[in-house]
């Protein structure tokens, strides 16, 4: 899923400092799963903002609404009858949400309430880790099922570099050296030969380097499915 972190209350308050009536829009997709933009988090943000503004002697009127998904025009259209009632809207969806909203409601201002960080999953309760860089050409089967593009700090295809120490990456002691894991997995499985030879240069056109990407499924476009 897409993982995000809530922006600080201070930053969010600064965004809407001149507004008196706002909507906080949550999303039932990824951000609900990673506990940053679902109903609960929307309610907490609304309360915190109201308290903060009251303290300043500058009350704010806040409504909340949690969309099924903010990355789907069908659901985004669901707030068409209320969206103009507000000075501004804070979206707690990933970076896709406030853009879909901005594209559909051109006269409204949408602020991102979260920082979208990565594609990953929860490794334990409250801890999410990156697993995928969305490079557009998945080859994890060549690396013991572990992705060096996303998980090596230098995206090395021929690692590990000289900074790998005791399974830890050189950038900090909390970062696993994924190449250490790849090598150990291969060696333990008696598949060292998979790591002999030079892995070829990557074609980054399928990644963000090739420009903004688009995925077209003709059968769906034509309504056959």
């Amino acid at each position: 899923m897409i993982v995000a972190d809530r922006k600080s209350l201070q930053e969010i308050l600064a965004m809407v400092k001149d507004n008196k009536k706002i909507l906080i829009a949550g999303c039932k997709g990824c951000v609900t799963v990673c506990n940053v933009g679902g109903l609960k988090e929307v309610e907490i943000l609304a309360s915190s903002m109201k308290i903060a503004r009251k303290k300043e002697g500058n009350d704010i009127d806040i409504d909340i609404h949690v969309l099924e998904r903010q990355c789907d025009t069908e659901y985004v259209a669901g707030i068409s009858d209320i969206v103009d009632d507000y000075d501004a809207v804070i979206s707690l969806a990933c970076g896709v949400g406030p853009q879909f909203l901005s594209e559909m409601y051109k006269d409204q201002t949408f602020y991102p309430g979260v920082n979208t960080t990565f594609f990953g999953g929860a490794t334990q309760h409250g801890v999410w880790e990156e697993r995928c860089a969305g490079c557009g050409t998945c080859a994890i089967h060549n690396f013991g099922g572990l992705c060096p593009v996303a998980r090596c700090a230098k995206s090395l295809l021929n690692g590990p570099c000289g900074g790998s120490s005791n399974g830890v990456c050189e950038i900090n002691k909390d970062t696993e050296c994924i190449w250490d894991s790849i090598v150990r997995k291969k060696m333990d499985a008696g598949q060292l030969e998979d790591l002999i030879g030079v892995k070829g240069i990557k074609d980054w056109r399928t990644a963000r380097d090739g420009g903004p990407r688009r995925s077209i499924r003709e059968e769906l476009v034509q309504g056959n499915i």
Partner: protein
Amino acid sequence: MSELKSGSNLEKVLKAGHFAFTGECGPPKGANVEHLTEKFQYLKGNVDAVNITDNQTAVVRMSSLAASKLMVDEGLEPNFQMVCRDRNRLAIMSDILGAHALGIRNMLCLSGDHQTFGNHPQAKNVHDIDSMQLIALVKKMRDEGKFMNDEDIDVPPKMFIGAACNPFADPYEYRVYRLANKLEAGADFIQTQCIFNMDKFRDFMKKVVDMGLHEKCYILAGVTPMKNAGMANFMSRFVPGMDIPDSLIKRLKSVDKRDQAEEGIRFALEQVEEFKEMEGVAGVHMMAIEWEHKVPEIAERAKVLPRPVV
């Protein structure tokens, strides 16, 4: 290895069977040419080639390409270091062509320290290709006369291709295979990370020799003389990939503070003596970090002077 690949002095020295002795010089944090050329003078005539570091530890410095050219102008031979952190494939190939055009004939292909270590941790890192692929690219440009995309190069760049090897990084058991991969990619010579743990290096070289890798390239053992126990402590704790045995730190601490530099040099000289005899080692890469002025004395005492003229 019958014909010369680049015709660099380093290549000729190694090919002639001499025990090579290379040095290292970091470009300035500024455009101070005077200071740089002053450092060159300590190295001139005392080493076969000098590594010009490329924004080492991810700290911005004068470009290694420009500093290498300044070195050529001063009559020394540079070993132009290039990291993949700061350049994509276009910039890499363009700089390789430029390097050849400026008279540079040695290159050391590196991934580069992560920018987190440096003075611009906010930077976007590139890593379009990695060091292994860079080695293969330089070889392709040199031997096939082709760019990465297979287009022909008009006057291919002739480089003596170097690569790094850190036997002290993990997983240790894999390091010799990674070295083998670098040779397969096309490395002509190897410069190792600074060696302090001699027991481990002896074991590593035994594996290298057992696999016959020393016959496919020239391996230069990395030596850094310690200035004092504090430097040893610092490197042990903060420099990635360093393996500094407690015994060395104890040895440095066992002498008076003002004698620690001499003790550090003594240890380095003992290492050089052992490397001269060690099977598979073709030379020493002396990294006297910001201690270039000590290189004449170190070279003299290491009995590697005069440097061969080939």
